[in-house]
Structures are given as structure tokens and as C-alpha cells.
């Protein structure tokens, strides 16, 4: 099993980042889009309602004004006779009353007889002698009982419109005529305040401004033919249009028996400014959110990848340890079988050699010239049988299932005991044994007997490596699993024992195999190659780990890590 390459981590990182970003952004887009869509819908409805309400309100105000003014004039003509009303002071009184009631919207007032002659007049203009028989309004007034004209210039050359109320029929009729100042009337319409660009105005069926438009279009000017499609409809129209590349939202309603068109309009950008501002803020928030998601995703992924990498490395280490254990177990089982089978022929060889030795003890054989050689040869056979016996017994010992006896162990005392066994021999070989003990090392729960075997084996190996003398350091320390702190004495901590020699070191190729059974660099007959393998098995059984680091020419260090609690 190999560790995944850097490239595979890069691919994994890219996949995770893309997946997480998509997973985070798509719902945001859907939710944000949905909320914005709903908000836009409600804002549009709100703006349209606002426009509708303004149009309806203005329509009502204007129509009420015209209706009330006409009704007041109608009342006058009903109550007064032609003779009475033709009196200058009577007309003056009526004019004043109308001025007060209608906020000086009335500019003048006059009485016209059936021939079109101005028989009485109150106002600022000199119109007393005028004859209106050819005027359009006079002709219209003859036909209708109440007539309200469009805005026109007339004799006075000032935009105005008139309200004419006819009394009587045939040749005896007369007309009460009042002039309404177009500018004063226009205030009723123009005064609307709708955002920054909102305006309201009235045009007639010929497309002529009846009131001033706030942003272009004076009274009596003609509306751009492309600007309006003048058609009759009931109630109210609301639509979006474009003028000089500016988008407008516009509402219109017919007034005065479908002769005047009231228009209220506003630039779309202005009307929807709140919506657009909200949208812009949402876009900024969205971009900021995406950046944040990106950064968080990146950091999370980095953390995740690091953990995966760490877990992979740990897994690889565990796999290696597992393979090593399996290797040791299978080799152990295999060798135990062989060792057991070899013991029988060895027993036969041994007993045969002994028989020959016994047979040759007879005096006459001793006289033979080759007796000494034969005797020496038989001794050698027995010696080699014993050597084989030692090997097979070690093999069987290696494969043996160990039962551990877990006790509280003071590691320093245990090391001291083992060192004491080899100290004398070491001093003869000019080896200085130094101890680097961690103060306040906690007691551990482990098998002291097995640990003694391991420590002794490692010390023996170190002494063998220091054939020409040198330094052997044996020490302890606490290693925290959580944060690497040396002081934290928690149950997760491990006790580390290290045995360091300043010997010749182990070449890298050999270092990989030192825990393999039968691996030895010692000359034949000096080592079975099982010592470190047994140590490895013991430490593993005790829930710890053992590893070696070495540099040729500088020395070797064996490190054992043991849990404080036996698991």
C-alpha cells in the first residue's frame, strides 16, 4: 500500500473546493434570486399602486373642481335673470364670491347674449365690447348647456380655458362665461411630488399641453407625436415606455368627458431606485458572500486535506506495522513447525552419537590411531546438535503466545535493574552508560518481565555495537499525544524510552529489515536474528511501538513508546 501522491491530494483538494463552493453558492443563488424576484414583484406592485392612486386622486380633484365650478355657475344662472346678472355690481359680487371659493382660479366673468355680444364683464382685460359669435367656444356653448373649453389664447393672448353655462333656449338664451387661468389651474396638477423625476400634466385630444409639464412641455405646446398614442379607454392605463432613451413608467386617465388626458409619469430608474439600491446592495453582499464562502471553503479544505494526509500517513504506518506483525506471526508459526520437526531427528542424531561414544569407550578401540579424531568428531556432532537445539528452542520461544502480567511499573527502577546486569561488562569494554531520565515520570501499567527482556536485548545490541567502546545513553521522557507538551500528564500520554549508542550505525537498507525475523548482521553462530523481532512483538503486545533511527558512523537510537494505561 502506498501513500497517495501530491497530485492526488491536489485533485482531491480541487474537487472538494468545487463541490463545497457549488453546494454553498447554488442555494444562495436560488434563495437570493427568489427573494429578489418576490421583492421586485412587490415593489413593482407598490409603485404601480402609488401611480394609480396619484392618477385617480388627481383625476378626482380636477373633475371635482370643474364640476363644482360649473355647478356654482349653473346655480347663479338659475337664480339670477339676464337683467339682474347684467348689472355690473351684481356680476362683480358673483365674481368676488367665486374668487374666494375657488382660490382665485377665476380670472374674469362675463355675460354674453344670444348674438355673442359681451353685455357685462368683470375682470382685468378689456373685453366689454367683444363679440364672440364666431368663437368656437360660443358655438359649442350654444349646443351644450355647460361647456368647458380646452386651453386657448383668445383675445387676451394668455393661455386659459373657459366654463360657459347657457341659460334659455332659441333666440333668448344667454351665457355666463368664466375664464380659468391655465397656470393657476395647472397648480392642481403640477404640484405632485413623486420621487426625483415624477411629473403630472394634462393634454387634450389634439396632443396639446393643457397644463405645464415639469420636465419639458409648456401650456399650448404640442406633445411629440411619437410620445403618445392618444386613444380612448375606460378607467386607467399603466405601462412602461421610453423617451429619449430614458425608460419611463406612466399612468394615464381620461378626464372631462374624454377630452383631457391626465398623465402621471416617472423615470423607471427613479421609481425603482429603492429596488435597484436593494439589488445593488444584495449583489455586493452576494459577491462578498461568495468571497467569504471561497475563503472558508479553501481554509476548511486545507484543514481537511492536512487531516486526510495525516490519517493516510498514520494508516500507512499501521499497515506497515500490521504487515510486519503478520509477517512475524506467519514466520513464527512456520518456524515453530520446522523447529518442532527438526527436534526429532536431532534427538536421533544425539542419541546415535552418544551410542557411538559409548561403544568407543572400550579399551581396545582407544588404542586405535584414529580414536582421538573419531572422539573429537563425535563431540563436535553433539556440540552442533546442542547448537541446533538452542536455535529450535529460540524459534519455539519466538512463536510462543505470551501471556502478559500487567503490573504497575516504575520504568526507571526497571531500567536500573537491567543496566546493573550489564554495567560491569560494559565498563570492561570502555562503554560509559549514561542515563537521561525525565523527572516525575509516571508509573505505567505494563508487563515488567517482558519489558526487562526488551530493554536487556536492546542494551545487549548497543553493547555489541560499541565493540571499540563509546557511549550508551538510556533515557526516558513523556510525550503528549494531544499537544506535544512535555508536562501534560494525561492518560493519553505515552512514556518514551530511548537507547542510544555511539556505535558504527546501521546502513539504511539494513535498518528497514532489523525487525524482520532471522535478519542478523552478526557472524554465523553468534545470533539468530530473532532478538529484535521478539522485542517488536512484545512492545506491540503491550500496546506500544518501537522504531530505530540510525546514521552510519554516528550511532543508532532505538525508541520505545508505551501507553501509560495498558489497553
Amino acid at each position: 500500500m502506498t501513500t497517495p501522491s501530491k497530485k492526488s491530494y491536489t485533485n482531491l483538494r480541487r474537487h472538494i473546493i468545487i463541490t463545497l463552493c457549488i453546494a454553498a453558492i447554488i442555494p444562495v443563488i436560488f434563495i437570493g434570486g427568489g427573494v429578489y424576484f418576490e421583492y421586485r414583484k412587490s415593489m413593482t406592485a407598490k409603485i404601480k399602486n402609488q401611480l394609480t392612486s396619484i392618477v385617480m386622486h388627481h383625476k378626482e380633484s380636477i373633475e371635482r373642481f370643474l364640476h363644482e365650478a360649473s355647478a356654482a355657475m349653473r346655480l347663479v344662472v338659475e337664480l339670477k335673470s339676464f337683467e339682474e346678472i347684467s348689472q355690473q355690481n351684481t356680476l362683480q359680487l358673483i365674481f368676488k364670491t367665486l374668487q374666494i371659493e375657488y382660490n382665485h382660479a377665476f380670472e374674469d366673468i362675463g355675460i354674453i347674449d344670444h348674438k355673442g355680444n359681451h353685455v357685462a364683464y368683470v375682470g382685468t382685460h378689456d373685453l366689454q365690447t367683444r363679440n364672440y359669435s364666431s368663437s368656437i367656444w360660443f358655438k359649442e356653448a350654444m349646443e351644450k348647456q355647460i361647456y368647458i373649453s380646452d386651453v386657448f389664447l383668445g383675445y387676451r393672448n394668455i393661455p386659459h380655458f373657459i366654463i360657459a353655462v347657457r341659460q334659455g333656449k332659441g333666440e333668448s338664451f344667454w351665457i355666463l362665461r368664466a375664464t380659468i387661468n391655465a397656470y393657476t389651474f395647472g397648480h392642481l396638477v403640477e404640484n405632485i411630488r413623486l420621487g426625483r423625476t415624477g411629473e403630472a400634466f394634462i393634454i387634450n385630444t389634439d396632443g396639446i399641453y393643457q397644463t405645464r409639464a415639469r420636465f419639458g412641455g409648456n401650456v399650448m405646446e404640442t406633445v411629440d407625436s411619437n410620445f403618445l398614442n392618444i386613444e380612448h379607454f375606460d378607467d386607467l392605463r399603466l405601462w412602461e415606455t421610453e423617451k429619449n432613451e430614458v425608460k419611463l413608467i406612466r399612468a394615464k386617465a381620461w378626464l372631462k368627458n374624454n377630452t383631457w388626458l391626465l398623465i402621471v409619469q416617472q423615470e423607471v430608474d427613479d421609481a425603482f431606485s429603492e429596488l435597484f439600491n436593494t439589488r445593488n446592495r444584495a449583489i455586493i453582499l452576494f459577491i462578498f458572500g461568495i468571497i467569504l464562502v471561497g475563503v472558508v471553503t479553501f481554509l476548511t479544505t486545507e484543514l481537511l486535506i492536512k487531516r486526510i494526509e495525516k490519517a493516510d500517513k498514520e494508516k500507512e504506518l499501521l499497515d506497515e506495522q500490521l504487515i510486519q506483525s503478520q509477517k512475524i506471526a506467519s514466520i513464527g508459526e512456520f518456524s515453530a513447525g520446522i523447529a518442532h520437526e527438526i527436534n526429532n531427528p536431532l534427538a536421533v542424531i544425539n542419541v546415535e552419537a552418544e551410542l557411538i561414544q559409548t561403544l568407543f569407550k572400550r579399551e581396545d578401540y582407544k588404542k586405535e590411531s584414529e580414536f582421538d579424531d573419531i572422539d573429537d568428531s563425535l563431540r563436535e556432532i553433539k556440540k552442533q546438535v546442542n547448537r541446533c537445539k538452542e536455535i529450535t528452542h529460540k524459534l519455539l520461544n519466538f512463536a510462543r503466545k505470551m501471556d502478559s502480567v500487567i503490573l504497575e511499573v516504575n520504568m526507571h527502577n526497571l531500567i536500573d535493574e537491567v543496566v546493573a546486569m550489564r554495567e560491569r561488562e560494559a565498563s570492561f569494554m570502555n562503554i560509559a552508560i549514561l542515563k537521561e531520565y525525565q523527572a516525575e515520570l509516571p508509573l505505567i501499567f505494563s508487563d515488567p518481565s517482558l519489558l526487562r527482556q526488551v530493554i536487556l536485548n536492546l542494551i545487549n545490541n548497543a553493547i555489541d555495537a560499541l565493540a571499540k567502546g563509546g557511549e550508551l545513553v538510556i533515557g526516558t521522557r513523556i510525550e503528549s499525544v494531544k499537544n506535544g507538551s512535555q508536562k501534560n500528564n494525561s492518560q493519553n500520554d505515552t512514556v518514551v524510552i530511548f537507547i542510544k549508542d555511539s556505535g558504527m550505525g546501521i546502513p539504511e537498507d539494513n535498518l528497514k529489515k532489523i525487525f524482520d525475523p532471522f535478519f542478523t548482521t552478526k557472524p554465523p553462530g553468534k545470533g539468530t536474528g530473532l532478538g529484535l523481532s521478539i522485542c517488536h512483538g512484545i512492545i506491540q503486545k503491550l500496546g506500544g511501538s518501537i522504531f530505530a533511527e540510525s546514521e552510519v558512523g554516528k550511532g543508532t537510537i532505538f525508541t520505545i513508546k508505551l501507553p501509560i494505561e495498558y489497553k
Partner: protein
Amino acid sequence: MVAMVKMRIMLVDDEERFLQTSQKMLIKHGYDAMVASSGEECLVKLEQELVHVIILDVKMPGMGGIETLKQIKQKYPMIEVIMLTGHGTAESAVEGLKSGATDYLTKPANIEDIVAKAEEAFSRHLALEEKIRLVEAIKQAHI
């Protein structure tokens, strides 16, 4: 004066050549040695022969050493049995000792070791017999 009793040893092992040569050696050492190549053969021979000490291999085909030991001890509790184990460990020996074996030897064992352990066991056997005789004598005296 009681006449010296000669130790009768039986070697039980499935390795024929080992049996033959070991028997020769034991005879040369002056012992009355018998052999059996299986647990079953051992039990059959015990019905006909008097044996003081048995050297019994643990691992044998058919009836294993431990089973043979149990049957021997059941039928002939006075016979001293020394287990001969191929394992260099104490486990099989411990099992043997628990089942009534006197001692154990590991393979390949020297004839000197076999003889020494067998002598020890025989002394025990004799001492035990002596004790039994003494107890019997005391019983008789009281009657």
C-alpha cells in the same frame, strides 16, 4: 535388608530409531529398558510389564502424550512419568505436570539427562513405596 530393586524404564516415542538407540544406551547404562512406539502400545505393555518410570513423548500420532499420561496415572498412579517435549517452552510441560507428570525433558535430550531425571523419579517412586509400606505396617501393628 531389602534387595536392591532395578529400575524398569519405558520409553514411549513415535520415532523408532530414537527408541531403538535409546533403549540400547539405557541397557548399556544397566537399566531394564522397554520401548513403545505409541500411547496405545504403552498401555498394552503396561498390562503385562512392571514399569517404574516412563519417558513419554508429548507429541505423538494417535493417542497423544497428555492423554496417554492421564490414562497411565488413572490406572497406575505409582508409575512416575517424565514428559519429553519437543517444545522449548514450559506450556506443554506445565500441562503434563498438571496431569500428574513427575518432571519434563526437552528434545533433543542427552541420555545423561534422561538417566538423571529417571533416577530422580525412581528415587521418588521408591520413597513413596517405602512410605506406603510404613503406613501399612503401622496399620497392621494397630490391628
